């Protein structure tokens, strides 16, 4: 009996050690892949940084109308581009290392990750564009409202900003296939709710206020024409 127990233990230890021995090359391969990808990322980053600087990339980005990128992130556009490329290389190296494991599960996870990759990129792109658009339009509304002497200019600008951000978030989640129909419905309820609230607020609660405000604007415009000529 004891002999059988001992034999079973031997066999299980052998199996575990064999499994570990089988996994070990995979781990080593993963480490090597990570190391190589890190070195490649560093080299590519170095070359890319010099290349972008020679092109005066930061100045060109500012010229394309994205001068706030630096103030938003605290990094220059060159830094951001180099970081994105370096991290992409490291992640690719990690995925290559993962496929070195012969286990079917890891291969499946990796292939699913690769299949999901375009969705991720699309979602990131949507988020970036949405954030930029939210900032641009909220600032446009803020400046326009201040120039028209609208007292609640900041509130209007905040409203526009969050409307675009909510829309962008819903689109990004859609791309990531997270939440399914719940996101669509939640967004429709939220968006519809905001519009309905605003309509009710203006239509019922603030009707007189809006009318008075518009009348005041018209009166001021007429006064200006009579006395002050800007051009």
């Amino acid at each position, binding site marked *: 009996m004891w002999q059988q127990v001992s034999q079973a233990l031997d066999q299980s230890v052998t199996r575990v050690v064999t499994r570990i021995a089988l996994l070990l090359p995979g781990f080593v391969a993963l480490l090597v892949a990570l190391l190589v990808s890190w070195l490649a990322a560093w080299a590519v980053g170095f070359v890319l940084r010099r290349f972008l600087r020679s092109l005066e990339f930061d100045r060109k980005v500012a010229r394309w109308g994205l001068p706030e990128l630096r103030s938003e992130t605290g990094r220059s556009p060159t830094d951001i581009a180099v970081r994105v490329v370096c991290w992409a290389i490291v992640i690719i190296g990690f995925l290559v290392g993962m496929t070195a494991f012969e286990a079917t599960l890891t291969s499946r996870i990796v292939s699913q990750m690769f299949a999901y990759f375009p969705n991720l990129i699309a979602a990131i792109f949507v988020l970036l564009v949405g954030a930029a658009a939210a900032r*641009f339009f909220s600032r446009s509304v803020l400046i326009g409202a*201040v120039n028209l002497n609208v007292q609640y200019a900041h509130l209007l600008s905040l409203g526009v900003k969050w409307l675009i951000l909510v829309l962008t978030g819903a689109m990004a989640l859609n791309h990531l296939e997270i939440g399914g129909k719940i996101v669509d419905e939640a967004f429709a309820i939220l968006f519809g709710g905001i519009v309905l609230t605003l309509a009710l607020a203006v239509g019922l609660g603030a009707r007189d206020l809006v009318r008075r405000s518009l009348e005041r604007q018209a009166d001021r415009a007429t006064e200006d024409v009579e006395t002050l*000529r800007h*051009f």
Partner: protein
Amino acid sequence: MPELESFPQEVKDQLTSVGSADVVIGFTSFKATDDLSWAAGLAQDGLNVLIAYPGGGDVIEFQPIAGVQFLHYPASTPERYLNAPKNIFGSFQEVLQIAQRLASKSCCVWNSAPQLASADIIESLIKPVLDQNFDLVIPGYTTAKFGALINSGIICPLTRALYGRRIEFPMAVDLGFSPQLLNRLIQVDPNTRVPRSSQWITTEAICAGMQICQTALLMEPPRPPDSSDLSSILAAVLGRIFSDLERNAAFWQRSKGSRSAPAFGEPYTKEQDEVAVDVTHLIETFQLGYRNLSEIWGLALSPATFLELKKLTKSSTAAFRMGDDLWVRIVYEFALAHRQRAMNRDHLLRSMTPLYLSWVASYTLQMLDVSADGFHHRLEQLALAYENQKPYLLSRWRWPDRFNP
């Protein structure tokens, strides 16, 4: 030599049949009901006159006038003029091309309402070119203490300080040209890749060393088509001026002091009745701007300027005064921010509206009981402030990264 490729064949044929003209008068907008009988007065001097008028549709049948011919050209110019605030100063390319093709000795482009034109007015724009070899004749419109405030507060003194020429209305839109200047304006600027005529013509002429004069016209400066949108007009005007600063940096950095451009005719100042101008809403807009646009202004203005603005927000309406030095610093610092692309340029320029209104409020309060002489003296003081502060702009233009408290 640029050809009139965009013109229909019948216009080209008509130009060929006309052959040449001493004077070309080009309107940038025209209606069939507009009267042109005054043109006979020009032809009496023995001048061979061609009047070019735009239109998209039918050719207008005019009463024949001896020595005057009429030419209908494609209507691209007035459409651009009417629809886009960016082009509020019009594009004269077509008229200038016609004048060049006909080898005219003088060309006048009329951008104001056609019914305001008369033989005397047109003659005052073309005679200095024909008789005294001037290259550009700029009208001196009627001035008023509460009129043309963008011109009085920014365009005129800034042009004087930077380009060294004292011109009352540097952005006037009714102009007289010599053949030398129109040949230059038709050419495409290699830096901007657009015809020079669609850039700011006055600074083009100054930088090219052309002879410039002013002629007094008894008419108010024309308003842009949509003059109710102050923010758009201000952004268009400032955008044009600031872009020009970049293009002509080599010229204005060397220019020192200022000298008057020769003037013809007696300038007329319109006496405005004493009116009670309420500037409360202008000050309110400025205060609202300070509360909401500080983040944007902070990207353009230096801390010292910002501090001055903070003090200004606490002034009562009666004591609201913006010093000339402060106003000039604001204009120069916005020009620098525009050059450095500190943020989206349209946002930057539009965000200047409350600051401009605060200057208008301060100026209006100062001018309420002032006579025409006092008003000219006040504007002279402002122009001198622009000239005195030019070294500040120059220094920050050349060394933008230097510490600026």
